[in-house]
């Protein structure tokens, strides 16, 4: 019996690596600390009522952003581990198979569990406020999306200490990700972690499309909508067309591994190239899904801090829609070298180059918005200014990669690694940071410290260029991606060392950001205005943090920058139209079903990973039961009475008005 337990445990838990034992210990300690802390301060009820069961878009958004910061930490530690291993030739810090696991988890976590939730967090906290809505279209579904993401992310991260991490790269190409070459459970964690959170992403896509199309404040025509919701709309359109492909593709890979199917296997008539086509039909739109909202954020910030109307509003909108459509027509540029033939390669090279045009249009629009503006350089604007040259140069190396014949040289080299980090960090990460700094006062009612923020900004930027510029050169010198070590004879060590130092700078920059948050909380200076940047759009017209119902009375919109125009009208002494009378506000009730149902998914996924039917089946039954309970519940909304609204408003606006 004891022998059995021992042999089970030695396979179930990842053993033999001191770093992983360290992680085991810290996971147990942190969990204990949380449990003890919550019990000691009697906060369980509070946590459950205020957060775990909430359907309030603002709280859900904050939970998304917290989760994404934790994931940024984990992905960042992975990155530093890899850079440490590559700092010098012949290092023996990470073994080959461990290195494979680290780049795989780094890639997956950064894209799916850092960038995506960060983006959804910003969608949630800002879109309803900007379009003058009281919530998203489907608040219950919104909570479910969050918890599905959370379950999927936990499942994926568990592989680090239980069963073993996936190691087939962030897109898990077969045949290597198939059962024949990869018999462990790592790839199954990969499949179910992404599958469960992916369903959540798909639902969020639907949710925000409907929210934006159907819930705008009266008078806000689509062409008067601020640019951020437009970018969210174009990103969500790409989500609803691409994520179903991911769902289907992962399901097929799972059937190969679990049920012995032959979709992508080498034997039985399977076709691995089919997978590579399908996964990139999702994968390429995915990178535009995460960068489009960043474009929207920059547009908001540029016009706020240049104190000018956004230049070329219409061309901005069309550029984003065109990018979102074109992103579906370029997927094969990821495998020019795989023998599709000259005609196919030419087509995909051309479509790829075409994307540069709308992107260029956007860059010029931002520049023209700044032109002759009275620019101030607070941190959100700094990130925006840092972004433009970074993204333009990163985009240009992308155009180089799109030249199919040249790509035979660049393909899968460090040139590529440098390129995608260039656009992803310079575009997506800088963009979301900018957005977080910009909207932080709206979320929490105080600004983040500017001085520490500037340190973080400069450290990030210096670190970024130090880390990735040498990698372009390394790529041209022949260093391929995903190598875990190299010899002295290659002549690569100087560049690699510089690159590692740069990565260290970014690590320190991240610590500065954490310190910035702690410092700003400690020296809290409450923003009483609700409008600390002299903003232009509706979210700045209400107190910070926004009350549960956002708007006591729905705003009537007549201009593109409605709040700015409203302030002008007030300053000109124009008569402010009388406030409409308050009415009871219709609100959704909190629900425990989303978190319970997601936990059931988690259990089912865990059962699938280990082929434990005794866990899978109850898990799936739990999922169905949750759906039915929800369907049979007709008592899921309530009204906030007028006197309560009056009371909240007068408290919030005491100082404002």
């Amino acid at each position, binding site marked *: 019996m004891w022998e059995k337990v021992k042999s089970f445990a030695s396979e179930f838990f990842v053993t033999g690596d001191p770093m992983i034992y360290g992680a085991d210990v810290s996971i147990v300690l942190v969990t204990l600390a949380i449990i003890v802390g919550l019990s000691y301060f009697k906060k369980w009820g509070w946590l459950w009522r205020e957060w775990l069961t909430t359907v309030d878009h603002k709280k859900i958004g904050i939970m998304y952003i917290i989760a994404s910061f934790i994931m940024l930490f984990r992905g960042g530690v992975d990155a530093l581990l890899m850079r440490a291993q590559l700092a010098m030739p012949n290092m023996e810090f990470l073994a080959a198979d461990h290195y494979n696991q680290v780049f795989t988890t780094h890639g997956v976590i950064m894209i799916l569990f850092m960038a995506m939730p960060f983006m959804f967090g910003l969608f949630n906290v800002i879109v309803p406020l900007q379009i003058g809505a009281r919530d998203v279209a489907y608040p219950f579904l919104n909570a479910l999306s969050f918890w599905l993401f959370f379950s999927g992310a936990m499942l994926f991260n568990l592989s680090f200490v239980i069963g073993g991490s996936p190691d087939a790269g962030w897109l898990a190409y077969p045949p290597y990700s198939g059962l024949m070459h990869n018999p462990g459970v790592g790839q199954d964690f990969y499949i179910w972690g992404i599958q469960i959170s992916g369903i959540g992403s798909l639902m969020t896509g*639907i949710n925000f499309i409907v929210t934006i199309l159907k819930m705008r404040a009266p008078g806000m025509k689509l062409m008067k909508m601020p640019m951020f919701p437009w970018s969210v709309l174009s990103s969500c359109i790409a989500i609803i067309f691409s994520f179903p492909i991911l769902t289907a593709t992962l399901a097929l890979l799972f059937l190969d591994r679990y049920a012995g199917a*032959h979709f992508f296997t080498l034997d039985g008539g399977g076709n691995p190239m089919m997978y590579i086509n399908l996964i990139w039909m999702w994968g390429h739109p995915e990178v535009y899904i995460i960068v489009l909202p960043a474009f929207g954020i920059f547009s908001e910030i540029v016009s706020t801090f240049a104190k000018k109307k956004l230049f070329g509003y219409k061309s901005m909108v069309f550029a984003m829609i065109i990018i979102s459509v074109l992103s579906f027509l370029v997927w094969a540029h990821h495998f020019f070298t795989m023998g599709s033939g000259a005609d196919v390669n030419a087509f995909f090279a051309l479509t790829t180059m075409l994307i540069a045009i709308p992107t260029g249009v956007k860059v010029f629009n931002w520049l023209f918005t700044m032109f002759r503006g009275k620019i101030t350089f607070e941190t959100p604007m700094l990130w925006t200014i840092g972004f433009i040259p970074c993204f333009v140069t990163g985009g240009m190396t992308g155009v180089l990669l799109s030249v199919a014949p040249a790509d035979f040289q660049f393909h899968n080299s460090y040139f590529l690694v440098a390129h995608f980090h260039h656009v992803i960090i310079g575009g997506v990460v800088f963009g979301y940071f900018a957005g977080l700094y910009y909207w932080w006062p709206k979320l929490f009612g105080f600004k983040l410290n500017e001085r520490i923020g500037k340190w973080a900004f400069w450290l990030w930027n210096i670190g970024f260029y130090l880390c990735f510029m040498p990698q372009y050169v390394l790529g041209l010198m022949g260093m391929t991606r995903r190598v875990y070590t190299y010899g002295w004879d290659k002549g690569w060590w100087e560049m690699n060392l510089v690159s590692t130092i740069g990565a260290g700078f970014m690590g320190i920059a991240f610590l500065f950001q954490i310190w910035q948050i702690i410092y700003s909380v400690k020296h809290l200076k409450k923003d009483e205005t609700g409008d600390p940047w002299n903003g232009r759009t509706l979210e700045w017209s209400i107190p910070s943090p926004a009350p549960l119902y956002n708007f006591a009375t729905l705003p009537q919109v007549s201009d593109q920058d409605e709040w700015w125009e409203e302030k002008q009208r007030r300053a000109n002494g124009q008569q402010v139209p009388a406030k409409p009378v308050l009415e009871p506000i219709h609100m959704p009730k909190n629900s425990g079903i989303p978190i319970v149902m997601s936990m059931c998914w988690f259990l089912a996924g865990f059962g699938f990973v280990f082929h434990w039917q005794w866990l899978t089946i109850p898990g799936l039954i739990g999922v169905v039961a949750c759906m039915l309970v929800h369907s049979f519940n007709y008592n899921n909304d309530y009204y906030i009475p007028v006197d309560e609204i009056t009371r909240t408003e007068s408290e919030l606006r005491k100082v404002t008005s």
Partner: protein
Amino acid sequence: MAQRNVNHAGQVSPAELHSEDHGHPDMEEMRKFGFWIYLMTDIIIFGTLFATYIVLKGNTNGGPGPADLFQIGGIIVSTFILLISSYTSGLAVLAMHKGNRQALMRWLGVTALLGAAFIAMEVNEFIHLVGEGATLSTSAFLSAFYTLVGTHGLHVLVGLVWMIAIIIQLGKHGITPVTKRKVHIISLFWHFLDVVWIFVFTIVYLMGVS
């Protein structure tokens, strides 16, 4: 509607209040709209599976191919069953518009029975095929076949459970804006599955045996 719907707590149902509440988005309409978008995403899932099937159709790995396996007679019967069930779900919606709850529940019940018959026939077909040694892991063609047809079957099964849940809710709450929306959505889903089946029938079975 002449009469206000009062739910079990004795309150006027919120959806009812809403339809009178101008300037607000109509919640039930919005849910239907969202469902249309969901259907689009489902079309893409099926599209992916169809594409996979078409690519892998010829890869029989020396095993049986479509023409060796499919018995078109049974398939035509189940096709008709599903088509008729689409028609009866339409009758259910018509009954709902007339305010006839009994007929509505009855027609939904008939639809669910036909759906169950369809699933039974499909399971039967699969058992028969497996008995002939044509399993999911025999060849890429069969992997794609079982996955495509099985995914459709799974959708029908989900629709079935859902329909039964709605029938029970109709019994409890009667025809209200909420249950009305639910009936609209399930019948939309049902028609959708019918359309997908037409494609399965044509691409998998008809083009397989011809």
